[in-house]
């Protein structure tokens, strides 16, 4: 098993490096010169050249890649062209919005998906199952940004219960900050919940047919008790695995939702950096997203190897 993990680890590193090269090339070749964007419509060629020198844009391509990636490996992500501050700090600041947002979305989607999935599995083909089925179809089909618009229309514009967007900052108090994140979290969570509900239902159904659950039922443990106490824990592995994969979609979905709700998160930073050709910020943020997905995939695979008794037996 150790050698398997080691092999996967090597390929993880290679994948990350290839991804970084790809990201660098794409961002670097994007039409549009960061210096020209900063200096606007009146800049003369000599001012442009001066700024390009200042930003290090006059150096050859391979040198710039090496400079960037070696910095990244040492924890130095470079300095933003537009903000003039270290990118690492910017990313950390933005994570203070994006991470709680993702965490809240995960919490909400679990709170919706697990009870619904379990109940649907318990009463397969019943009314609950049908309703849950319909919910999951709608949930998967609904565009998150549209849901965001409708939530704003209902809760902010019409009812006035919630702010329509923006972020007061954590220093304004946790309650206000969380409140600002609630609607976007719901918009992010519903599609996720729909996927998770399906997975939960399928996983519980499968374990329900297994022996130990049947034994528990036979021992007189109530139907519901058997499901919640025995079937659900046994079904958690696939749920968590799907979760790991979906979590990455959560981060990506945040790009759209953060824009609709005007949250200063990482997705918005990426969007803003692209439009201002703040190339260094883009490279870092996209690499961050990509690394997150790659590492997440790796961990899920690892979890499979470690947790699944069949796989474990096979490999060792």
């Amino acid at each position, binding site marked *: 098993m150790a050698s398997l993990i080691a092999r996967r680890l090597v390929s993880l590193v290679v994948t990350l490096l290839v991804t970084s090269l790809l990201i660098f090339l794409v961002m670097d070749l994007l039409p549009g010169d960061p210096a*020209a964007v900063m200096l*606007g419509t009146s800049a003369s060629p000599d001012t442009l050249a001066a700024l390009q020198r200042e930003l290090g844009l006059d150096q050859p391509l391979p040198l710039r890649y090496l400079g960037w990636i070696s910095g990244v490996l040492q924890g130095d992500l470079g300095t933003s062209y*537009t903000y003039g501050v270290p990118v690492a700090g910017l990313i950390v600041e933005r994570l203070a919005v994006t991470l709680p947002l993702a965490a809240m979305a995960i919490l909400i989607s679990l709170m919706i998906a697990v009870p619904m999935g379990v109940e649907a599995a318990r009463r397969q083909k019943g009314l609950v199952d049908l309703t849950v089925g319909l919910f999951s179809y709608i949930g998967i089909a609904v565009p998150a940004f549209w849901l965001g618009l409708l939530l*704003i229309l209902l809760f902010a514009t019409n009812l006035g219960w919630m702010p329509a967007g*923006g972020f007061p900052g954590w220093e304004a108090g946790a309650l206000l900050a969380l409140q600002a994140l609630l609607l976007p979290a719901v918009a992010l969570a519903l599609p996720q919940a729909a996927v998770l509900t399906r997975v939960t239902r399928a996983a519980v159904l499968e374990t329900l047919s297994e022996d130990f659950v049947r034994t528990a039922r036979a021992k007189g443990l109530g139907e519901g008790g058997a499901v919640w106490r025995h079937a659900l824990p046994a079904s958690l592995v696939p749920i968590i695995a799907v979760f790991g994969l979906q979590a990455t979609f959560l981060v990506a979905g945040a790009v759209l939702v953060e824009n*609709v709700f005007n949250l200063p998160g990482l997705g918005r930073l990426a969007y803003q950096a692209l439009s201002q050709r703040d190339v260094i910020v883009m490279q870092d943020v996209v690499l961050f997203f990509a690394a997150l997905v790659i590492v997440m995939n790796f961990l899920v695979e690892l979890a499979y190897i470690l947790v699944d008794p069949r796989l474990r037996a096979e490999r060792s």
Partner: protein
Amino acid sequence: MRIRKLFGAAAVFGGVLFAALSAAPFAEAAPKTSVTLGMSIEPAGLDPTIAAPVAIGQVTWQNIFEGLTTIDRNGAVQPQLAESWEISEDGKTYTFKLRPGVTFHDGEVFDSSVAKFAIDRARGADSVNPQKRYFQTIEGVETPDAQTLVLKLSEPTGSLLYWLAWPSSSMVGTKSADNNKTTPVGTGPFTFVDWSKGEKVELARNPNYWNKDEAAKLETAVFRFISEPQAQAAALKAGDVDAFPEFAAPELMESFEGDDRLVTVIGDTEMKVVAGMNNARKPFDDARVRQALMMALDRNMIVEGAWSGYGTPIGSHYTPNDPGYVDLTGVYPYDPEKAKVLLEEAGYGNGFTLTIKAPQMAYAQRTAQIMQAMFAQIGVTMNIETTEFPAKWVSDVLKASDYGMTIVAHAEPMDVDIYARDPYYFNYKNPSLNEVLDKIQQTTDSDEQAALYAEAQKILAKDVPALYLFVMPKLGVWDKKLKGLWENEPIPSNVLREVYWEE
């Protein structure tokens, strides 16, 4: 494993959380010594002397940074750090008498050596000043004594005093200049406190401001950045933001009408929405074609459809804010029949096809779609190619001139000279225009300049190097009790020194 209970508890907790969050008050009454201003765009750095985006000046100009001269709310040039000046007979020597007792926020004393440093930094070889060309006639800077600054010019430059008032000409300190991008230090009535990137910039009153009569009335001021118009409106209504001097979506203005706490103030900006044409390219090299296209457009209907009826149609590249403005919308009024005749004369009786490179911003996209429909009526087919602004637009249109038609709002005040600039993306050449513009620089008499500007406007209106559409309105929305904000915007700015809360 009590998973069911766990989830039950989680559900209850979630419900309580939701209820608590919904009930939490998110509108606090603003204390009367502080103001929160909303802006659509976050500035890219806070140093207006090294980058072009107007949002930089809208936060810092006249609040943190000041210039030798300044522009008042009517667009007139006024003395500021230079209390007076003398211009030599030949218009080539400017002698400024600097104001004594002025210090920067970090304590550095402002004198002629600092002023020389700031001007040399803007015009030097390594300068990255976005308006460096405004300093190109300055040949030498002399400092006979600490309070006297002498600018030697290579030729008379009638607009120099006006240009020195711009955000990009701000006076910066020798010790602080390099860090102004992140921690700006100026001489203004407000000092920089903090910048939460992506959220807001905070300023505080400068207790040591040199002009005791015009010291800031507010204790603190916050600029908050909210890009989505929907969120801007909600923030205003909830009181999270006291003012949005430039509200982004005209269609939402009527939603403030029922609100008796807010007031809406419609003014003019300097943003001229103009559909520029590549005058070097067929068929735009033929003035008759350009005139026909102008006559195909019903500017009132464009303003109605694209900007909900807000905005002033223009007939030249000039706004009602500026001295010498003439209404020239009547030169080529909406007349599709006449337009067709002109096209016929120019040899395009069957119409032609053109492509407009339109930025993604709402005003450009909407205007382009309406123009598309109007051109169709004179047999001209227009394809819309969305071109990302600023990055792709700058490289495609501005630098490479690889376009037929484009549309963009020109934000810089009194910039008729762009039609004489070579190279510039219009590729327009008209010696008689250059002559008039040169005369403007030869004189320092403002009435004479205004008359010459009127002449320049007329030349442009007749020859139509670009289709002049409308001036963006300044859609101001703010708390009724907030006083002192500018109604018009003769230069992109948010001047806070006179802002106060009425009891």
